[in-house]
Structures are given as C-alpha cells and as structure tokens.
C-alpha cells in the first residue's frame, strides 16, 4: 500500500489507577507503583474479589468546557473516563480542539479542522448504574413481594430519568468526546472486549492512511469497578479471589503462580495524525504507527483450545503490514491477563511467532500495576509502548516473577532499564469472543 499516507502519534491521554495524564502514568510506571487496592466506590464485601484498580479522585469539570457540565448527569462512568482521556490527549498534542479553545487552554496556531477530525473509541458493555436501576425496580413489587412486570410497565419505569438509556449506550463515549472536542469526521465505536482499543487504533490508522481524515482521536475506555462488572467475571471464574489481602501482589501476568485477573477502570486515547498534518502544525511526534493486524481464533464463545492461532495470526499480520519481522523488534508488549489458560495461550502465540528472539528482547506488561480495564486496556498498553520507545526506557513489569516455565518474555524487574528501541509491538485480545489485534510502532525518522 505504497500510496498510503504516513501516520504518526502526536498526543497521549491516559486515565489509569496509577495516574491521570500520560506523564503521571509513566512516572508511576517507572516507580513500579501498583494501583490495585480494596474497592472504595461501593461495598464489595459480598463479592469473592474485593479489590480493583480505581482512578485517583478528580473533578470532571477540569476536563470539559463549563457549558458542558450539565451533560455530566447523562454520563456513565465509562463515558467520564473517556472524556478525561480525550482532554489529556488533546492537551498533550497541543491540538486546538473546541474543548481547549473554550477552556482558554489552546496553544498558538489555528483550530483543528473539525470536518477532518475523526474519533474511534472502543467501549465495553456499559453496566447500568445498579443503585439507580435496582432502586427503580424495587418500586415495582407485586402483592407477593416479587418483581411485577405489569407494575413496572404502568408506574415503576417512570422512576428512571427519561434519558436513562443514553447513559449506557456504548457509542456515547465517542459521542460525548466528539461533541466536547468537535470532531465531525469518521466516527466509530468498536466493542470487542479487551481487543477494542487495538482494533480502534488500527482502524483509525487505516482511515488516516487513505485520506478520509487528517486527525483522529482513538483508543478505548471502560470502567469495571462497579458491582455488576465484578460479579459477571466472578461467575466465569476469571477473577483472582485468593489475594484480597494483598492487592499489590494480586495481578500476576505470566507468573508461575498467577491466580486470575483483577479488574480496573481506565482508558487511553491517542491523537493520530497524517504526517503532513503533524508537520504543518509543528507537532511533537512520539512515533510512527507502521503496522496493524487483526485476526480471530475462530474458537467460539469461550473455548481456549487453539486460541493462540488467532493471536499468532494477528502478530504476523501486523509485522507483515509494517514490512518488518521479529529480528527488527526491540520491545514486545503482551496483554497478560493473569489468568492461567489465557496467559498460556498468549505465550504459545508469542513463542511461535518470535521463537528464540523473544528471549533477547525486552518485554513489558502493565497488568500487574493497573489490572484489566477491558476495552481501555489495550490503549493504555499501546501508550506505554509508545512512551517506552520514545524515551528508550523499558519500565518494570510488576508481579511477573517467578515466571511460568513456558514464559520467555524478558520482563524488567523493580527498576526501569535503558534500551535502544526502534520498533515495538503491542498485542490485545478479547478474553471471550476470539478477537485479537496487534500494532507496530517505529521511531519517527523523516
């Protein structure tokens, strides 16, 4: 595809349990901090896993124009996380969006052309606010005390605010972000679990490369720190239920004694631009996005047998798209769910594609520090990968020791390590459904 335009990364926005904003997140990662602790936003003591990664306190008003504050009441937590990420990404890119202009925080230079500014924001299955919904449902008890659908239809449902549904549609992450920042070009909402962010960034890459937009804000966000979002994977046996008393040690990707995942909230949005657009406005360029590959394990709803085939194919396609191979990759970022069989499948995939090379390339995973924030997890991994490449530094990967005997990843322990990184690859995949995708970034060279 030689006719394609080059696409570069010029802005990074993160909301993570270890920090808001790319700089705070990165510094905390280098310090090997952990953002997982006992859940504070609700009483988790009825659930088998009582720990998660919640965002540090913040005020939404700091991230939106004043005129938009009244819209906060129709935002589920997932949407708020995306809006926070979008602010940080635009600020970091010094991109003069409507939000920054209205807040008086614009940089020198003209506003971004909204008709050439797109959005591609991955989202999860947003859980309804349980207190709100359960409270309303509880008003529709029949004479026997049980829930009565008839009573719900006549009067119960009126206890829900008229705009109730709009809080929980997954596309509302992108809709609020595009309104706040005035992004009118191609707009998508990819909902593929933990693969969502990689798929969204990859699709935005293609959109920019073929010229359908000049700038795109892309990635994903999700909040899994609510009762329903914890109960569901608890039912699937995916959560670590054995380490509630030591949350900082609970998420152990690829470790021999890994015991299940720990949930989190958070997200990442990046500003991608065509190279010409970035150069014309004198933007700082973190890296060039050079490869995207997507594939499916084709194994159905939850079977992990042969799941590694889809991940291998995604890695190979991304490398091929970047016209490179494992010998030219200097950093690998696996997902690392911390679930026994998922990590086993992922290791098989990486070992198969990278072979001996995997033992000689630094690796990183953020799961031990920030847990699994679903549709936003891949974007945080991608941002960490871009920062590592940009700063020639590999951050430590928490709780990856002692490694699984099959693990060939060269994770860094305790302190960051300097490394010359020209190309890096990051993988994301849906824990159920089979979707996988990989992205390759390269140090920018004119």
């Amino acid at each position, binding site marked *: *595809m030689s006719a394609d335009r080059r696409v570069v990364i010029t802005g990074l926005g993160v909301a993570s349990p270890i920090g808001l904003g790319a700089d705070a997140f990165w510094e905390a990662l280098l310090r090997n901090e952990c953002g997982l602790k006992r859940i504070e936003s609700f*009483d*988790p*003591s*009825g*659930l088998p896993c009582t720990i998660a990664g919640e965002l540090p306190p913040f005020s939404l008003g700091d991230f939106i124009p004043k005129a938009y504050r009244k819209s906060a009441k129709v935002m589920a937590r997932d949407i708020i996380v995306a809006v926070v990420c979008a602010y940080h990404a635009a600020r970091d890119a010094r991109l003069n969006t409507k939000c920054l202009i209205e807040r008086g925080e614009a940089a020198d230079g003209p506003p971004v052309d909204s008709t050439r500014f797109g959005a591609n924001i991955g989202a999860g299955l947003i859980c309804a606010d*349980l*207190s709100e919904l*359960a409270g309303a*449902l*509880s*008003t529709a008890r029949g004479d026997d005390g*049980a*829930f009565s*659908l008839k009573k*719900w*239809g006549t009067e119960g449902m*009126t*206890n*829900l*605010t*008229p*705009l*109730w*549904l709009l809080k929980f*549609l*997954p*596309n509302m992450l*992108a*809709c609020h972000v*595009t*309104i706040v920042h005035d*992004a*009118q070009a*191609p*707009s*998508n*909402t*990819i*909902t593929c*679990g933990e*693969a969502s962010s990689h798929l969204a960034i990859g699709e935005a890459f293609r959109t920019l490369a073929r010229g*359908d937009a000049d700038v795109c804000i892309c990635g994903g966000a999700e909040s899994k720190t609510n*009762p*329903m979002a914890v*109960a569901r994977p608890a*039912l*699937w046996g995916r959560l670590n239920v054995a380490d509630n008393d030591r949350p900082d040690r609970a998420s152990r990707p690829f470790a021999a004694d890994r015991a299940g995942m720990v949930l989190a909230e958070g997200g990442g949005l990046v500003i991608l631009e065509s190279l010409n657009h970035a150069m014309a406005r004198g933007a700082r360029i973190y890296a060039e996005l050079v490869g995207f590959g*997507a594939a*499916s*394990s*084709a194994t*159905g*709803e*939850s079977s992990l047998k042969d799941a590694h*085939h889809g991940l291998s*194919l995604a890695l190979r396609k991304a490398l091929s798209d970047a016209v490179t191979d494992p010998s030219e990759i200097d950093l690998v970022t696996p997902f690392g769910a911390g679930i026994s069989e998922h990590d086993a499948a992922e290791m098989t995939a990486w070992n198969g594609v990278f072979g001996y090379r995997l033992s000689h390339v630094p690796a990183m995973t953020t799961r031990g520090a920030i847990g699994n924030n679903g549709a936003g997890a891949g974007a945080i991994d991608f941002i960490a990968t871009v920062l590592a490449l940009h700063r020639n530094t590999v951050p430590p990967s928490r709780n990856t020791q002692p490694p699984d005997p099959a693990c060939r990843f060269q994770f860094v322990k305790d302190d960051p390590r300097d490394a010359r990184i020209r190309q890096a690859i990051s993988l994301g995949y849906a824990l*159920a*459904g089979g*979707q996988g995708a990989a992205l390759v970034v390269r140090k920018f060279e004119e």
Partner: protein
Amino acid sequence: MGWVTPLGFDIDGVWNRMLAGERGMCPTALFDASTFPTSFSAQVKDFRLEDFLGPAAADHAFASRNSRFALAAATLAWKDAGFSELDRPDPANVGIYLGGGEGPLDFDQFAAAALAGCREECGELIPLDTVRWAKAALQLLRPKDELEQEPNLAGGHLAARFNAQGPNVNTLTACAASTQAIGEAMHIIRHGDADVMISGGTHSMIHPLGVTGFNRLTALSTRNDSCLTASRPFDRTRDGFVLGEGSGILILEELEHARGRGAKILAEVVGYGSTADAFRITDIHEDGRGGIAAMRAALKSAGHAPADIDYISAHGTGTEENDKIESLAIRQVFGDRAKHVAISSIKSMIGHLIAAAGAVELITCVLAIRDGVVPPTVNYQTPDPNCDLDYVPNQARKLKVRAALSNSFGFGGQNDTLIVRAFDRT
C-alpha cells in the same frame, strides 16, 4: 445475502412480502408488555436455529438471541454466496465485521437480584445494599447468559461456525452500526486485509429494559390499538418508531477473488461515508450537518454525483425529528434532484432493527437493483410539509435502479451512508 426479519427468513419471500406492503408488527409476546406505554413490536416469529444449522446448532447452545439470528442469517448468506464445506476460501483471509448489539439482558434474574438487594419496603426508592445484592446475584445470574451479553460474542460464534480467522470486529454505533460495519468491511477488503468479509448486523432490544429505555425517551410509537399502522415514516401523524429485531448478513468479496471462483455477483459496494454530528447527545443537528456530510462523503468515495442515485433507502425511523431532518439533508445534498429520487423506509413494515437495521436495508437496495423495483413506505396517508419528497407511498414501484444510497443515523450523532450499484461486468 441472508436475513432474519419480522417478515420471515428467506430473501425472496420476505422481499415479495415487502413489495406487497406486508407488515410484521403484533403485540409483544417475548415478555408481558401489556402495561408498557408501548405494548407491541415487530418480532421475529417461529425462529429455530436448528432449522438453519441442523445438528450443528448444538455447538451454539448458549448463544444469545442476537447470536442466533446472526448465525442463521450468515448461514443463508454463506450458502447464497456459493460456499460450501468443499468449496471454501482460505480461513486466514475470511473476516467478520458486524454491527452486533449487546445480547439481551437476563431480565428476570437481574430484577430478582435487584429486589433481593433492596429492603422489603414497597413503593419507595430504596438505596441498594450491594452486599445483599452480590449474594443474590451470584446465586441468580447464569454465567453463560451473562457472557452472551458481550456484543462481540456474535462475531465469535460466526468465526467458529465459518472458521473465519481474519479480522473480526464488532461496532456498536447504535442505529448506524451495521451500515458502519459494511463500510469498514469494504475498506478491509480494499486494503487487502481480507478477501471475504461476512458483514452486517444483528440485534434484539425487544426485552423489558430495551423497551423501557426507548419508552422513557418517548422514541417509540404508542399506537397500541393499531400496531400495523403505527410505523409511519414521513407521515405528518408519525409518533415514533416501532422496535423490531433480526439480522442481515452480506458476503463481501474482493472482485478478482469472486471472479476466480465464478461467483454470482449481486452488486458492487462503491461508497461509504461516516461522520459525527458532534452536536448534542439528545438531538440531531438542526441543519442535518452530520447526515449531509455522510451522504456527501459516500458520494465522493463512490465517484458519483447525486444524479447517479436512483433510490434512497432512508433511515426513516418515523420519529418527528429524524424524518424532518433527514428530508432536509437529502434536499441539501441532492438539490433539484431531491424531488425526483425515490425514497422509502422499510421500517414502516419491519420496524427498527437498531444495530441490524442498516444491513437489512442494504440488502433491499441490492434487491431493488436486481429486480428493478423499489419497496414502498407503507402507512403513508397525511403529507407533512417538512417532508415533501417522493417516499414511494404505499405501493412498490417498478424502477430501474443503477445505484442506491442507504442512510443510517445513530443515537448520539454517528451517521453512516453506503452506496451500492449494479455490477458493471466490463
């Protein structure tokens, strides 16, 4: 192509029913909606996955209603494309791009857990006790049913069924989702990331919370006493859309790949535009700027002028706001041609399939091209001065369609337009 609709399952049978103006609405039977503001819907009837998959349906025993619809529609489409167990494409180059909705919530169990989490006082809003709730929820919620609510599961089922190992994506841009899916699938093929894409959408929101959500938004028609005539796109007396359900699946294929195997080519997907209103969560931009930009982007990408379009499959939901602004947007884009292009909304007959709507509508565009006939907008009686275009009222019309444009506009302002045209064999 394949579909599962409130008017049935086979392409030609449903198509003929649409051309005859048949309607698929009836009182809601999937749950007791008798006291809801809207007590009817356009449901898929007499659907059994075994009828489509045979014994293989057992492989998808836990599949949600969404996934079942998609499996059936894709099985029909796969066969229609001429693929079989013996003659099938390279799995690594077969991808999936769906506009798949979230699987229906397991409402009875959810409500029971919710009530268990609230204290036993009636008639007042009581704060939830999450500890009590959790104990009940872990007993009541069924793991497989919970898993099947994930919106990417339908794509997972299809991948397993057709051994599709290529790109697998699900979008959920509300009512625009399956139009978006087909547009992005076209680009995946153009870029060389797959040779064959199984694309379209699937959705059912005919469950208590789905209807609750739309009723609270006052988006649904409440003509409970006359459900067959309730969906009235572009009519002055319209009062909201009618909720439908189903799936539409198309097999998209790279041209040389299709030629190489001697495939029957139904039409060419030539244009796609995606935009955002970036205006308000609750309202469409009053000038229709997002819809205008989506149609213009699709025309530009197809290399077409408005004069090349013979038929528009409108989003045409039957809400006051959509139909007025969509008509305005069409006038803006098509200028003098706007009054001369045939426009219809099949939502008048099958309701609004939400995420699946665009795919089903695109299939009707392909059939219009194939058969030289366009479907009617039924229930059209009273003209609206704000909707002054040719909506093909009540009667199907013979019309040579060289190219057709299909609009889908999502809640929140994500807009997508596709253009298909008769395949030119030269």
